[in-house]
């Protein structure tokens, strides 16, 4: 295996070798290498196949803008990630990586046939080719395309990693740790302001890491960098975050930073998060994100071995890796000449520098001469050769008037290109700041901002180290001053500057047919210059449309290397200037970000709050099966000895109706309404009348929205003249309190009444069944439980089992029932005491499923199950709950709107299936005539449906148009297997005379 590592160059740790694999082959690199630099050091350029055409692709860049070199990474223990950019992935001992989008292997890939079938895949091919027949899309085209075109494979196992998040507030956030960012952070830090400096790379330094020969204030760049890092580390007010990408810039200087914590570690400490999302609120932001080099657009510019000149220079200077043994440089910009010089000085043969410009700065030409490098000024590149790696480049002179002369072929194993530099304005663009086109530099620069931020250095078109340092220092000082900290920025003296003039941005001239040139603009989405021209020929004029039609700039790299080239090609084709063609909007995240980072702590047990009642632990210990009810988990049923739900619920129902059941009702919403105007407030909120409700009595309360539809219900007890104990549905508790506060605060602020949530103050134990009173009598103090003194719908305060209680005699089952409220911390103990004493009655714990069945047998509705936000009290058969004489209550006026009085409104009714064993599906649609043609006229739907053990048959509730007037009528429920028929009945199936309530 060849070795392309150059002794004495680079910053990688030569004393720490690391072994890793790529496509099953073992390689070695050094600590500090990226996968890209380590592969290049081993002579590997071919790392993947392209998205559509499966063309062999190599490493284009040395940074996060990389469009080609995407790999799958395996960190062991199920940690697999697709589409990791090899140029940012740090190697470590044992890392396993693989190429993507190839089969059976990277070097022999069947899909490469797509490359020959260009016409199938050209611009808009999805839209044109797969229009017809429509049904083919799902079954044929889409699967085939998905197979043939694509990126890596998503992992199938759950992500084993944990993630973290953190909020931070600072005076100055500096994004980017290159020359400008460092200078900014140093100034802001010296001022005393609190500073966060983040950089996406593993090391702070940016382009300084690739500039060892530059001298800053008399120090070599790397020495200066070491001192600068030490200075920052010594400031307690400065936080430096390497491996941290600013992914999004949101309103009011809120910036998301993704910090990679453990991906680079060989051994991850147990429980350590993989990544952390920082949510930073900064008073001032300095964006110093630098610039990204542009490729040149010419035929064969995507062949492995063709890469950006600046990247080659970084691999040489930072990683000590030469990207080839014989290189050619093609450029329209000065900076690529420095790559040629550095490589030549390192012993690499530079076969030629091809500059498409007519003239170049004399000092560059002189330097090339001194290094005996052949220069071809005013030449163009018209093609490359080499199957899996570039082997030669075809170059032609361009004469006066743009005439392309005859070609010459130069052998090479790497072709370095530069089309100039694009300032990274992505985050500024996130703020909706305006951009202005700079014709000289052929680049967009930041215009008017909308946030407290400024840009510095190459990120706003100030190229060169001195400019970056001074601009950064000024920005850092200004930001600190705006945050209230004063400091005077220093001057910087820099030796060894690169030259930064150039022209940019047009497809290179060629002597060949442009219509056949495979000149790539967007490498990741496989978009060529001719695709963009085709889109223009077909009538697209705006870049937003061209982009969507050709997909240029729409890959995961968001067109970091391709946007300006795409614009230039479109601008040429449209014969309109670039600003008139427009620039597409950049959107967060700046680079692809894992879902885990966005989720943060919210995965596994912390995915969402799981609310548990004080009695939940008992239910768990006693084998309950749980179900989620809003954020709560509630016991659904308590299976015994291998029972299924059906058997368990039937047993539980029977126990309640025949003796005694115990139920945890703690999740019921509870609101304490207190104050001299409490009754008046209740009158206005609820449909019922409250003035005459005596203390110690309860009433069913029905709450509407102002639109007249049922919002919530519950039993409400009056504790005292000025104090009500309101209960709400489990899911409605917060909503009801919010609605009450809204009316109280904004409509009736004059009322002297206050609302307090007491949902969690009280544990609620519901006892139901003929033996309920017998069980609690010995435990209750201070309340006469006799039927006369404490009838149905009575409530009182006293003690039970020695602790305070609010005792309600209410029933949601139709049986004699009590709801025992005790302070929450005593809930479980009281429950256990009653359960123990209840053994002589065969006391049976039951869950929500049994509760649902028992209440349905009695025709008691559940708001949110039997109602859906479109039912009025009358629709639900609850007209009796409306205080007819009250002048007003929330929703009253709506009840007299014409459409609320229509005869064909859906009304709740009972349903009995013709086959008593059939339990209808909840939500099933109901029709009157099962033989009508499809689509049938649906007249209603099933809202509740259960097996009733009490009746030995199924029961159901349904909302049916004009249902109450259709009593006795047969309706039909078409289901996939058969059409069920059922008879409309009343809603009460069990004990219609309510004799059991006062058993």
């Amino acid at each position, binding site marked *: 295996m060849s070795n392309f590592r150059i002794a004495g160059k680079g910053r990688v740790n030569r004393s720490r070798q690391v072994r890793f694999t790529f496509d099953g082959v073992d390689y070695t690199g050094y600590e500090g290498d990226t996968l890209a630099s380590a592969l290049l050091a081993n002579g590997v350029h071919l790392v993947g196949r392209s998205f559509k055409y499966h063309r062999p692709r190599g490493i284009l860049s040395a940074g996060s803008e990389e469009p080609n070199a995407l790999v799958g990474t395996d960190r062991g223990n199920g940690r697999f990630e697709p589409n990791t950019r090899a140029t940012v992935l740090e190697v470590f001992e044992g890392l396993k990586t693989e190429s993507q989008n190839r089969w059976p292997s990277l070097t022999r890939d069947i899909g490469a046939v797509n490359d020959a079938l260009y016409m199938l895949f050209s611009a808009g091919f999805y839209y044109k080719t797969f229009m017809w027949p429509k049904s083919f899309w799902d079954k044929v085209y889409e699967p085939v395309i998905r197979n043939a075109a694509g990126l890596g494979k998503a992992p199938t196992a759950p992500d084993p990693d944990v993630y973290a998040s*953190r909020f931070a507030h600072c005076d100055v956030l500096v994004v980017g740790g290159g020359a400008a960012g460092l200078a900014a952070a140093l100034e802001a830090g010296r001022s005393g302001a609190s500073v966060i400096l983040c950089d996406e790379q593993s090391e702070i330094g940016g382009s300084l890491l690739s500039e060892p020969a530059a001298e800053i204030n008399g120090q070599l760049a790397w020495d200066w960098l070491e001192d600068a890092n030490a200075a920052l580390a010594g400031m307690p007010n400065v936080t430096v975050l390497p491996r941290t990408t600013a992914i999004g810039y949101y309103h009011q200087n809120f910036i998301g930073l993704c910090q990679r914590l453990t991906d680079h570690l060989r051994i991850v400490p147990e429980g350590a998060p993989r990544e952390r999302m920082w949510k930073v609120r900064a008073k001032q932001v300095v964006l110093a994100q630098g610039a990204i080099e542009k490729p040149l657009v010419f035929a064969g510019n995507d062949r492995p071995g063709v890469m950006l000149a600046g990247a080659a220079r970084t691999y040489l200077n930072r990683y000590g890796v030469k990207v080839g043994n014989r290189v050619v440089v093609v450029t329209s910009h000065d900076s690529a000449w420095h790559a040629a010089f550095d490589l030549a000085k390192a012993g690499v043969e530079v076969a030629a520098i091809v500059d498409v410009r007519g003239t170049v700065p004399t000092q560059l030409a002189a330097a090339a001469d001194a290094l005996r490098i052949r220069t071809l000024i005013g030449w163009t590149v018209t093609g490359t050769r080499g199957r899996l790696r570039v082997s030669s480049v075809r170059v032609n002179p361009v004469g006066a008037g743009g005439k392309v002369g005859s070609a010459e072929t130069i052998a090479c194993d790497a072709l370095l290109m530069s089309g100039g530099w694009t300032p990274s304005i992505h985050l500024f663009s996130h703020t909706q700041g305006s951009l202005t086109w700079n014709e000289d530099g052929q680049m967009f620069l930041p215009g008017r901002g909308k946030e407290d931020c400024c840009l510095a250095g190459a990120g706003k078109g100030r190229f060169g180290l001195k400019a970056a340092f001074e601009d950064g220092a000024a920005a850092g000082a200004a930001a600190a001053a705006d945050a209230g900290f004063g400091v005077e920025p220093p001057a910087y003296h820099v030796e060894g500057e690169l030259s930064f003039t150039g022209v940019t941005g047009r497809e290179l001239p060629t002597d060949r047919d442009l219509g056949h040139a495979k000149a790539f603009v967007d490498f990741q989405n496989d978009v060529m210059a001719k695709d963009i021209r085709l889109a223009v020929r077909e009538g697209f004029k705006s870049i937003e449309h061209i982009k969507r039609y050709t997909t240029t700039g729409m890959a995961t790299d968001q067109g970091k290397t391709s946007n300006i080239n795409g614009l230039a090609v479109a601008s040429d084709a449209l014969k309109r200037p670039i600003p008139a063609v427009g620039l597409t909007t950049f959107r967060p995240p700046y680079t692809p970000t894992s879902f885990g980072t966005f989720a943060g702590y919210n995965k596994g047990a912390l995915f969402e709050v799981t609310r548990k009642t004080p009695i939940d632990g008992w239910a768990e210990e006693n084998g309950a099966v749980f179900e989620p009810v809003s954020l709560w988990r509630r016991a659904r049923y308590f299976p015994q000895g291998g029972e299924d739900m059906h058997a368990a619920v039937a047993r539980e129902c029977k126990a309640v109706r025949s003796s005694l059941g115990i139920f945890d009702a703690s999740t019921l919403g509870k609101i304490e309404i207190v104050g001299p105007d409490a009754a008046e407030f209740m009158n206005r909120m609820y449909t019922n009348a409250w003035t005459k409700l005596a203390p110690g009595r309860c009433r069913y309360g029905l709450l509407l929205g102002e639109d007249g539809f049922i919002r919530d219900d519950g039993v409400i007890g009056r504790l005292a003249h000025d104090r009500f104990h309101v209960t709400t549905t489990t899911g409605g508790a917060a909503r009801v309190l919010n609605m009450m506060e809204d009316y109280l605060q904004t409509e009736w602020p004059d009322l002297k009444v206050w609302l307090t949530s007491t949902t969690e*103050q009280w544990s609620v134990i519901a006892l139901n069944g003929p033996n309920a009173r017998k069980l609690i009598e010995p435990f209750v103090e201070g309340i006469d439980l006799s039927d006369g003194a404490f009838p149905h719908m009575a409530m009182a305060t006293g003690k039970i089992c020695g602790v305070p209680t609010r005792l309600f005699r209410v029933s949601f089952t139709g049986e004699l029932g009590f709801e025992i409220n005790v302070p929450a911390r005593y*809930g479980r103990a009281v429950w256990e005491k009653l359960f123990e004493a209840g053994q002589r009655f065969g006391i049976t714990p039951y869950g929500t499923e049994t509760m649902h069945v028992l209440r349905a047998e009695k025709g008691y509705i559940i708001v949110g199950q039997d109602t859906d936000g479109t039912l009025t009290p009358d629709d639900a058969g609850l007209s009796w709950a409306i205080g007819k004489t009250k002048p007003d209550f929330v929703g009253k006026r709506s009840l007299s709107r014409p459409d609320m009085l229509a005869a064909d409104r859906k009304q709740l009714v009972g349903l009995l299936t013709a086959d008593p064993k059939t339990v209808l599906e909840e939500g099933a649609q109901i029709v009157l005539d099962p033989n009508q043609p499809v689509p049938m006229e649906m007249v209603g739907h099933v809202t509740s449906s259960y097996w009733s053990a009490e009746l030995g048959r199924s029961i159901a509730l349904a909302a049916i148009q004009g249902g109450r007037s259709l009593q006795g009528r047969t309706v039909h429920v078409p289901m996939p297997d058969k059409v069920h028929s059922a008879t409309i009945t009343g809603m009460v199936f069990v004990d219609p005379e309510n004799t059991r309530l006062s058993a």
Partner: protein
Amino acid sequence: MLLANHPLPGKTIPGDTASRLSIRAAEDTARFSLRIDPAAVQAAGTAFGTPLPTRIGGMTATGGRSALQLGPDEWMLTAPVAESDGIADAFAALQEPHSLVDVGHREVGILVEGEAAALALRSAIAFDVEAMAVGSGCRTLFDKAQIVLVREDENRFRIVVWRSFADHVWGLLQAVSREIALGI
């Protein structure tokens, strides 16, 4: 008396080796939500035996009793458990219209202490915890759970959270304290 049952699974999260962080369940207290017209705040303070704060976020404390103003007409009153009935009786005698509701069992307290306390809280609290004044408190969100946060000292915070949300807060603090112990 029956056994009280606390919602937190363990009572403490041990700190890291440098003891930069310790997290534990707080002792139970008597706790009331007082709602009253701010114009009557003096009379309420007399009933409570401790003057009430008059600024949202403000706190007063004397003799084991403390009052935290959470809203324009809302105070959280705390006291030793044994004083609960006495406080209820005192307010029952207060002539000014008001609402005093016992919420002693509604919430539980979690104490977050140590040099890294604020850092730990920053994992899930969106406002600037570091800038919070000592001796102040407010309602806010901790991840998805509503809490009342009190800064009792430079490095000591108290979280008061509805009991069914306590598990979630506790679990997240456990994850955070692991990070802090690892120095990551």
